Structures are given as structure tokens and as C-alpha cells.
């Protein structure tokens, strides 16, 4: 294990940010801490980095007891949401900071900085100041700066949170490729389930200061441990009191075993996908079908049809925090 967090709790005044959190993060993986804001994910990341001291519990990094170590001696690289760029230094000196502090030879620093700037595609910006860079460029600089000291673990706190949607998408894909190149154990915090699903090997879902479930994006999507995880990871609708993904609702023109009668209240065409709003036993619900299916069945509002939900979540499977991480 690269990072081991055991029974960590942390309170700020009356607010319990983390409650008995245990997480294991395998070496070389790319893990997302996902959850709503105030769920404790940033606090957990800061505890791992040593920027917060846990009230109870322990942290181990690469097999070394780290709970009492200051951030300087943990071998972690931290990337902040708002870049934390040193504005009075050029890009080059920002990236070189950790190496200069360690009094590395000038030539070695120059070479390493050059390599890193190439890695993050900022080589032509070496002599600019952070104020002359765009948000995405600043964040790439911050990443290069964190990687310069060859951390055992890279931690990113909502790294794309301050960027606009387009740049965020580009950087996401870029982070994934970068990780495949560098292989450093990476943990990033996000509240965007799409970002987590797209980038991470493994997702730790957190809410209310607790770990709700740990697993691969597929596992979480297909076998959510709770209604909370299910609704946080994708769209859901309720049919007969059970949660179901709208694309797992089959629409039939004739009754069959398990099917319920429904009234179509509206059909919305969104390109390939068609959203069908329904009334099932007096309750609103919706289904997501392809354009082909909708055309084939000739669905239109006012039609009386039958709905058959598949893969309904009937009971809470594994309990909270006990699902072992896939590695």
C-alpha cells in the first residue's frame, strides 16, 4: 500500500470533518476522493499531506509511519485548487523551488526543470510570471512544481475546480495521460462524479465525514452500496419505491410479469437520447431510451404503456467503508 489511513477523525470546533475514516490506496494508482462539498474529502487529503493534524488515527506513507511527520518530510507533492503560485517568481523558479531549497547543483536543477516544463508543455513560458499565464497553465506549472521533488505521492485538491468547463475537460484527459507516463501514486479530490469516473482507477466516495464506498468506477456505478452512492454517481428515478437508473427502465407496449402500467407525460428528444417522463401509479418517474427504441415503439405523450425496471437496488449490499479496494 502506498497510503494507509486508519481510523482518522478530525474536528474543527463543533464540526466533525472526518469521522473514523480508514482508506488504503495502492501504489501507482490514480484515486479520486469524490463527494459533496463539506463531505471531508479535502480534509482527508490535507491530513495525508500533513497540513492538518488528525485528532485520532494514523497515517502511513509507503510503509513509513507519517502521523507525526511535518509536511516537509512526508515526500508528498500537493497541488492546490487556486494554484498557490509564487507570484514573484518566474515559472522556471517556481518549478525549481523545491530543488533550490534542497541545494541541488545548478546544472541538475536546470535540467530537471527543463524536463518538467516539457512534460507539462510549458517550456516556452519558462521566463514568464504566473500572472502572465492562463488558469490551466498555472495549474500545470503547480503540478510540475509538485513533481519536481519526486514525491512518493501526489495529492491534488480540486485541481480543476477553478477552471472553466472546456479547460477542465482537457486537463482531465491530460492528467490521466500524465499519470500513465509518470506512475506516481496520485489522489485527487473532486465533487464532479463525471470527472472521477473519467480519470480515476478507483473512487472513494465520501459524505458527512465518512467513507461511503470504495471501488472502481464500474463497481460503484453497477453495485452501489447505498442509495446515496447510487444517486451521487449517476441519474436515478424511483419506480414502485425502488431506485433505478433511468436507462434500466424498459418501456413495453404490452403487460408482462413485473411490469407496471404507466402514462407518458412528455417525450423529450436530446439527440441520440430520448427522455421519457412518466407517471407510474400516480408518482412521477422517467426513463432514458435511445432514439431508435422511441421511434420503434412510437412513444408520444398521453400514451399508456408498461414499464419494467431492471437492476433495481433492493437492499444495501456491503456496509459502509468495508468494501475492499480493488488493486
Amino acid at each position, binding site marked *: 500500500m502506498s497510503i494507509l489511513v486508519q481510523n482518522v477523525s478530525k474536528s474543527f470546533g463543533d464540526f466533525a470533518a472526518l469521522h473514523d475514516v480508514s482508506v488504503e490506496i495502492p501504489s501507482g494508482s490514480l484515486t479520486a476522493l469524490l463527494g459533496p462539498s463539506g463531505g471531508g474529502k479535502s480534509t482527508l487529503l490535507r491530513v495525508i499531506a500533513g*497540513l492538518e493534524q488528525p485528532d485520532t488515527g494514523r497515517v502511513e506513507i509507503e510503509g513509513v509511519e507519517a502521523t507525526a511527520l511535518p509536511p*516537509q518530510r512526508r515526500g508528498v507533492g500537493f497541488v492546490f485548487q487556486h494554484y498557490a503560485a509564487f507570484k*514573484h517568481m518566474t515559472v522556471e523558479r517556481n518549478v525549481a523551488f523545491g530543488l533550490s*531549497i534542497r541545494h541541488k547543483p545548478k546544472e541538475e536543477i536546470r535540467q530537471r526543470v527543463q524536463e518538467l516544463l516539457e512534460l507539462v508543455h510549458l517550456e516556452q513560458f519558462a521566463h514568464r510570471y504566473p500572472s502572465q499565464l492562463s488558469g490551466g497553465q498555472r495549474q500545470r506549472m503547480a503540478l510540475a*512544481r509538485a513533481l519536481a521533488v519526486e514525491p512518493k505521492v501526489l495529492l491534488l485538491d480540486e485541481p480543476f475546480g477553478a477552471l472553466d468547463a472546456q479547460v477542465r475537460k482537457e486537463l482531465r484527459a491530460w492528467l490521466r495521460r500524465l499519470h500513465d507516463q509518470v506512475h506516481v501514486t496520485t489522489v485527487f479530490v473532486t465533487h464532479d462524479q463525471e470527472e472521477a469516473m473519467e480519470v480515476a482507477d478507483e473512487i472513494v466516495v465520501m459524505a458527512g465525514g465518512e467513507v461511503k464506498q470504495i471501488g472502481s468506477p464500474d463497481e460503484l456505478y453497477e453495485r452501489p452500496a447505498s442509495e446515496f452512492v447510487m444517486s451521487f454517481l449517476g441519474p436515478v428515478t424511483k419506480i414502485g419505491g425502488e431506485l433505478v437508473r433511468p436507462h434500466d427502465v424498459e418501456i413495453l407496449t404490452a403487460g408482462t410479469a413485473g411490469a407496471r402500467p404507466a402514462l407518458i407525460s412528455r417525450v423529450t428528444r436530446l439527440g441520440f437520447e430520448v427522455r421519457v417522463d412518466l407517471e407510474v401509479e400516480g408518482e412521477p418517474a422517467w426513463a432514458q431510451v435511445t432514439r431508435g427504441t422511441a421511434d420503434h415503439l412510437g412513444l408520444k405523450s398521453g400514451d399508456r404503456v408498461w414499464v419494467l425496471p431492471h437492476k433495481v437496488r433492493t437492499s444495501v449490499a456491503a456496509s459502509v467503508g468495508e468494501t475492499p479496494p480493488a488493486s
Partner: protein
Amino acid sequence: MSGAVAGSARGRRALGVVTAAVLVVVYVPLAVVVINSFNRSRTFGWPPAGFTLSWWARAWHSTGARSALATSVEAGLGATAVALLLGTMAAFAVSRYRFFGRETVSFLVLLPIALPGIVTGIALNNAFRVLGLPFGLLTIIIGHATFCIVLVYNNALARLRRLGGSLEEASMDLGAGVLQTFRFVTFPQLRSALLAGGLLDFALSFDEIIVTTFTAAPGVQTLPLWIFGNLFRPNQAPVVNVVAAALIVLSVVPVWLAQRVAGDAGGGRF
């Protein structure tokens, strides 16, 4: 529409007149002082009787004025240095640490500049007597520092709050210790705020007269005290006038610098 335009044009003209009047009231007396320093008439008759540089020459050779100037500069530098040190430290403590009574510190630091100078003066005078501290340059510096700290403190605190803690965290995460972080990361970002605060402090100390009256010794005079003492001696009046004219020119420099520094710091970030 045309009425609104006419109204706003009239309003603008009225504002212009008021602004001009205020500027005249403030700057004409200053101009008179400067002109009179070259006035041949000893009693400053108007219009000036003729041009002379003799008052400037006399002021230059006046040992009283020179030693008072030296004392003022020393007191200003001393008070500014003390204020920079204590003000920065207090701002750091308040912005970066949580401790009992943190909210009260800002109030306590601010209070001396709001207190009437005469109250501060009497209080310090009594305190120095009780402590047995001999009156002189040191007591003047302490007196001035009490109200100078707040300018550095406020400037530094505002800057530290705006910077946030993540720069320092990033620095420490990259391996820098507390002192290295201060030297390479925090101080460079704080420098312009400290410079602005320091320049204002120097200016504030330089023309202070009330607190100084209560903390100076008979032999140790600052320039304002010297001016005040010589103002009504007919023989010295022209020299006092020259000193005042010189001070007008000199005070423009730090204020202009402070404004420039503060302006630079405001722009060009984020």
C-alpha cells in the same frame, strides 16, 4: 434627456468649482510659505519686497535646526523600525494562528492612534517617570512607536489575509522550513505592504508634536518642537519659514512613494 445632460453638466461644473476651492485653501498657504522663504522682508510684507537666499543660508547654518532635524530623522527611523518589527509579528500572529484573545489584539493595536495625543503623552510621561527611564531619544521613539505600529499591522494583515495560507503550505510541502518559507515566499509578497506602512509611519512620526512634547527632554528636540519654540521669536521667524518650506518639499517624497508602492501592489496580481 437634454435637461438631464444640462443638469449633469451644471453639476460637474459645480463640483469642479468646489474641488478648485478646496485645493486653493489647502495649497495657497503652502505656496505662500515657500514664496516667503525667498522674501527679502523680515516681516513677510506682501507683495514680497525682493528675492533673497539669505534666509536659506541662515537656516542651513542654524545648529538648532540641524540638530532638531537629526533628532527627528533618528526618531522617525527608530519608531518605524520598531513598528515594522512589532506590527509584522502581530499581523502574523493574528492571521496565521488561533489563540485566546486574538480578536482583542486588533482593537488594542488600533486604539493608540485613535486616542487623543495628549492622553497618550501624559500616560507615557507618567509611565517613564515611574519606570525611571530618562527622557530623550529613546522615550520619543517608544512614544511614536505606540501609534505607528497600527499602520504596519493593518497593511501587513490585509496583505496576509489576501494571500491566504496556501502559499506557505505549498512552500512547506516542497520542503522549505518556517524561516525559508518566510524569506523566500512570504516576505517578498509582503514587502510592498511593509514599505507603504513604513513610509507612512516615518511621515507620521516626523511631524508629531503632542506626544513628543511629553516624551522629549529639554536638550533633545525634534524639528516640530524646534519650530514651535522658535515660531514667535521675531529674529528666528524667517529661518522657521525656510525650514517649513524645506519640509513641504521633503514630505512630498515619502507620500508619493507610499502611494506608488501601494498602487503597484494592487495591480497585476491574479
